[in-house]
């Protein structure tokens, strides 16, 4: 993946198994978010393949798809700079996530057919369930932008979950959270994996969170994969220490 003359990502081979929590770490500008954008087809990588094996379905290549199709295939994401639908209520935000799993069309909406009403009711209930999962059921009717920061991050997760993904991409979910909020998030992510069997790939700078919940960790630096392995393996890796702390550390 190149931007102008800058090579943002080069040869990043990465896999996520079913119901696994994998973290990508690396210094700022290492290409972590770019990697997410490639997977979700916001950017088209110049070379390389992205292949998914959805549980119970045939494998598919994601190359050249539109972002919304990727979501439909079961990959949902959150954003580094929170991107909620600010003027909508909390509940509506999650309901938008149901879009690709529902079918009601214009005619249905205008005529209020029984099918549409049923679907709408299902959407409401499903979305409410998602809000309960992330602990926002009390704020259903608040405007999304009125929520505190940590709650907005959780709402983003709920919205992503509403698309019924098998792989959830979290871009710095703990950024800007205080320790107790981070602890709740830690618990939430584990719960999502256990209850729904969703695989999670996350980018995070909060090392405590990463070490706590990740099964495996990939380390990126300047667009290259410099290490991978379990948390213990990665912390001991000299390459990683160098990337984070610079050469001086050795001297």
């Amino acid at each position, binding site marked *: 993946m190149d931007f102008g003359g800058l090579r943002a990502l080069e040869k990043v081979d990465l896999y996520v198994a079913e119901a696994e929590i994998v973290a990508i770490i690396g210094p700022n500008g290492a290409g972590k978010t770019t990697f997410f*954008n490639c997977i979700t087809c*916001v950017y088209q990588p110049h070379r390389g393949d992205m292949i998914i094996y959805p549980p119970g379905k045939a494998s598919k290549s994601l190359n050249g798809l539109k972002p919304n199709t990727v979501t439909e295939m079961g990959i949902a994401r959150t954003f580094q700079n929170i991107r909620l639908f600010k003027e909508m209520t909390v509940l509506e935000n999650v309901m938008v996530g149901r879009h690709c799993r529902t079918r009601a069309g214009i005619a249905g909406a205008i005529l209020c057919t029984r099918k549409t009403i049923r679907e709408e009711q299902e959407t409401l209930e499903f979305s409410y369930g998602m809000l309960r999962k992330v602990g926002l059921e009390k704020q259903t009717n608040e405007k999304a932008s009125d929520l505190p920061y940590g709650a907005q991050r959780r709402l983003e997760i709920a919205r992503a979950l509403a698309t019924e993904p098998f792989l959830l991409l979290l871009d710095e979910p703990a950024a800007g959270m205080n320790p107790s909020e981070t602890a709740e998030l830690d618990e939430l992510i584990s719960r999502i994996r256990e209850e729904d069997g969703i695989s999670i790939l996350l980018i995070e700078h909060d090392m405590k969170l990463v070490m706590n919940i990740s099964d495996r960790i990939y380390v990126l630096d300047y667009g290259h994969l410099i290490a991978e392995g379990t948390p213990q393996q990665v912390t001991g890796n000299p390459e990683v220490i160098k990337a984070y702390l610079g050469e001086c550390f050795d001297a």
Partner: protein
Amino acid sequence: MEYFLELFFGGLTRGSIYALIAIGYTMVYGIIQLINFAHGEIYMIGAFTALIAASALSIEGFGGWSLLVLAGFIAIVYSAAYGFTLEKIAYKPLRKASRLSPLISAIGMSIFLQNYVLLAQTSDFLPFPPLIEEFSFLEQVTVMRSSELLILSVTAVSTALLTLFIKFTRMGKAMRAVAQDKTMAMLLGVNVDRVISVTFIIGSTLAAIGGVLISSHIGQINFYIGFIAGIKAFTAAVLGGIGSLPGAVLGGMVLGWTESFATGYVSSDYEDVFAFGLLVFILIFRPAGILGKSTAEKI
């Protein structure tokens, strides 16, 4: 060939005027992301003030170049004052509102100013005195008129001065800073209100210059000229890439030539169709205009 050159210079002249007005649009847009729909009316008011001033002054015995310079100066002062006041009344209170509110306010202002001139003066076309003297050295030239040469040179000089102003002065730097990030500029001690005022004053000045010159060239004005010129100039600004100064000039020229050649070679009925058709066509292939940079949004 002669016909071609005539059309070429005609288009260039028209383009210069579009460019002068378009700069006002593009600067205001660059700084507060507002389509200043009333900008065309500022141009119209400039032309009217010049006409009134010229009429009054010629009774006092002024004539020749001094009349053009004096009337032009008065027109510039008044247009700048109107631009300044316009911003204070219709846009400043709306700085924090959603993007559409100032747009409606601008449309309202445009209607208001048109009717203000209509009621205070007249709805008829008024003859505009030819303030621009003929240059003797152009007597033999058939493809270009003196007023066209003057318009071209004035446009060239004013855009050059403006570019220097923005590049090298303190205020120019402040303008660029505000255009990039208003909040940050404010935190660094830039007086954003003043920068915005100056932007409106500069834009209005250029619009007035354009208004005086083209009215003298064409020879008549009415209260409605600002509306059409405004839409065309805005088209030029978008064509070139809104927010970009060279873009506004280039857009103006491209638009001027298109209209001139379309009128000359095809049909004058469809002049505007060509202008807008070109706009649609270019934006389909370059969604941010000819010189506009399509900024990739950070996700």
